Structure formats: C-alpha cells, structure tokens
C-alpha cells in the first residue's frame, strides 16, 4: 500500500507503487504534480487501452472516456483478485452483466469480448499448447484462437459453428486447449481462470 506521508520525489521506487499500478482509486493517494502520480497514470493507461482499443464497442456503453466502465471494473477486479490474464475480457463481460450496462450487453459484444480473450491467450500463453477453444453457455458458436505457427504469420481467431454442437459449459464460459493445430478433440470444458 502507498505510504501515508508523501516522500520527497526522488525517493519513490516502483516497488512502493505496485498496488496503485493497477487500482485507479489508489492514484489519488499521490500528489497530482508528482512523478509517482504520472508513473501510475502510465500504468493504468495500458489497462485502459487493452480494454478499449481492443473492444471499442465498450465506449458506446460508457461514453468516450470509458471511465464509467474502467474505474468500477478495475476496482471490482482488484476486489476479486483477478489475475488480469487472458480471461480478463470474460470477467469484464460478467461484470458488465451485473452492472448498470447489463441491458446493453448483446450477443455481438459477448462474442467481441470472447474473441479478445482468445486473441490474448494466443499471443501471451507460453505453454506448448497451440490453440484454445472458448464457449459461452447459450451462445452457440465457439471462438477458437491459434498461436503463430509460421515465420510470417501471427495469431489467428476463428468463430466456428459446429454441425453437431458440443455440450454447453457448466458455467457462463468454458474453454479447452489444443495440443496441435487441429480442432479435432474435446476433452471437456475447463472453468476460465481468475
């Protein structure tokens, strides 16, 4: 937690600001004209861009600065101790569906958030797995993310409808990973990580 008394500027260390780097409400504990405040702002902006640059439809709900979603969601994420891993967009979806914006969360937004999640998995996961399959209960199609597998390629995202649908996940979202670049198996749904 930030110290109660403000240290002279040159004494700040990143290590003393860590909580505030991902909790917007804590930024106010630091003087507005301090390097510490700006450093925290720099960190928080990356979370903002990770949400709103990838899913600009969220701005249609929140207004152009996104803060009506960003600040309460980040506070909730801290309370829930979300790891902010690839599933962050799915937790945002869950939060939206419990928020004042619930009535405006349509199927298109759900799939946008699912696509963002599998894309983040495909670029950030470092396991030997090659792909991920994500399903939302009541939403039919699957979202599939593939890691880069050619030198000039990148991650790839597909929305897939199966002729014979898989069983629905027990929870709102479920996923499984693929050890090869083939969508040829189903070992059951796993709950998305916090």
């Amino acid at each position, binding site marked *: 937690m930030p110290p109660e008394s403000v240290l002279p*500027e*040159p*004494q*700040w*260390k*990143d*290590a*003393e*600001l*860590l*909580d505030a*780097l*991902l909790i917007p409400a804590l930024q106010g504990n630091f003087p507005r*004209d*301090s*390097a*510490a*405040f*700006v*450093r925290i*702002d*720099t*960190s928080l*902006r*990356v*979370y903002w861009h*990770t949400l709103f640059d990838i899913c600009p439809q969220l701005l249609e709900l929140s207004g152009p600065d996104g803060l009506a979603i960003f600040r309460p969601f980040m506070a909730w994420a*801290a309370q829930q*101790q*979300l*790891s*902010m*891993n690839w599933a962050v967009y799915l937790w945002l979806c869950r939060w939206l569906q419990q928020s004042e914006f619930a009535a405006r969360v349509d199927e298109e937004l759900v799939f946008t958030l699912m696509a963002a999640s599998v894309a983040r998995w495909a*670029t*950030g996961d*470092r*396991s*030997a797995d*090659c792909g991920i399959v994500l399903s939302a209960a009541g939403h039919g199609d699957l979202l599939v993310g593939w*890691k*880069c*597998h*050619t*030198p*000039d*390629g*990148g*991650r790839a995202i597909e929305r897939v409808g199966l002729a014979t649908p898989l069983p629905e996940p027990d929870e709102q979202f479920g996923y499984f990973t693929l050890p090869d*670049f083939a969508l040829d198996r189903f070992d059951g749904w796993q709950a998305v990580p916090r």
Partner: protein
Amino acid sequence: MRIGFNFTLGSTMGLVQRLIRERRIDYCELLIDNFLQVPPAQLAAAFDCPLGFHIMFSKFLESDVDYLEAMAERLHRHIEALQPLYVSDHIARFNHGGRQLYHLAEIDYDSEYRHVRDRVEYWQARLGQRLHLENYPSLLGGGRAAPEFFARLIRDTGAGLLFDVSNAICAQRNGVIAAEAWLPLIEAATHFHIAGYRESILAPKLTLDTHDAPLADDTLEFLARYRTHFDKPGATLTYERDDRFDEAEIDRDLAALRAIFPRLDDREHADAA
C-alpha cells in the same frame, strides 16, 4: 558493430526482409517466445541472416519452476537449431500479488539482489547459455541503484548486460541517473538495444520507452560520444520498433546508426580513399 532489427510477429516480415535485402541490417532479433510453435527449420529458412533471441515472457524472476522447465526445454530446441548470436531476457517485475502488470515495473534493487542472482543462475543453467539481461527504463528514483546492481549481478553470475541505450537515456531524462553511470558496464557489454521514446501524457513529463518514434538526438549523441565503448568484436545493436512502422523513418534511423558504426568493409573503403 552489427546492426539489427527486432521481429516480434509476422506482420513486419516484408519490412524485415527488405532491410536484410538492402543490407540495412546485419541480423534480426526474434522475440523468440512468440515463435516457439514455429519449427526452427522454418525460421532458419525465413531469414537470410544471423539471428538474436530476445525472451519476453519467461518472467524468470517470478515464474514457478515447472513453467520455466517446460519453457527452457522448448527454448533450448530453438537455441540448438538456430545458434543465435545471443539470448537475452529482462530484469523487471511482471506481476504483483498474483496480478499481471501490463506496464512492467522496476524491481527493488536494494532488497531483491539475492533472489535475482539465484534466479539468473538457475535460468542460465537451464538454457545452457549465457544470458544477457536488459536494464529497465527507470521512471523513479529507485533506478539510481541499477548500474551498481547490474555490475554485481554480472560479476556473481557470469551473465551479460543487454544494455538498452534508450532505456538509460529515459532514466537520465527522468532525473534518475546519468547515462554515463553505465559506461564501465557498456565497455564490458557486447549486446545493445536502441529505440525511440515519447513523453507521458500528463505532467510532470516522464520519458517513456515506447518503441514507436524516431531515435532522439540525445540518444544518438550519447552513442556517438561513446562510440568506442560500444564498438568491439562481436557487438550487436538492435533497433527496436514495435509500433508506427514508418519505413522511411526506420531507414533514416538505421542510416544514422550506420553512420556512427560503419561496416568494417565500408571503413576499409574510406581508408583506401
């Protein structure tokens, strides 16, 4: 001095291939953990130049051993097959309290030395390779202890410093520590990074290592002033660009670097003339 360019994902393949073809670069640095699903033979065939490996998300200071063991095994396959010029990784904090920091944080150099040293020794042993560790672009005063920390770490572990010139210039511009404080370490280092930076949106302005802008005059001036500290047999300098791939701008920056570090054969021609 070999000059290189970073390659993080396929969308810049055309640019990188042109830089290789036009001899604007001598090697390519792969953000290797983005390519662990690509067979090494395909990577070897795709680049008609030597390769460097930069590891981004091992998070070796924080990750559990099972994760690192699995990653090391896969990295090792690529290292064996592609024989990179160097393998580098980061001294930085990626998580806090089990939560991901999207903007990496600087470690606490005063309290974390023993842990970092032990992890560097472990990670080097698992990769079977000398690791070159990158300095952080310090934003706050804690970064003042960085050069001394790295000197001790390198002495104790045998690791190398991947000295990021612009990270040191960022720290200097942020009032943390003069870039000259790194000179003894630069003299001993072989592998270097350089990139553009931008100022923070809010004031008081901080200088941020953004990799999306042309090289700044102060960065190039530092490089030119201490050219002999950098230039040595086997030395590499990677120009990093992760956004705003303005090719004319990139060409100009690479030419500016080449003007500071002419190719040996270019120098021989100049001497002969």
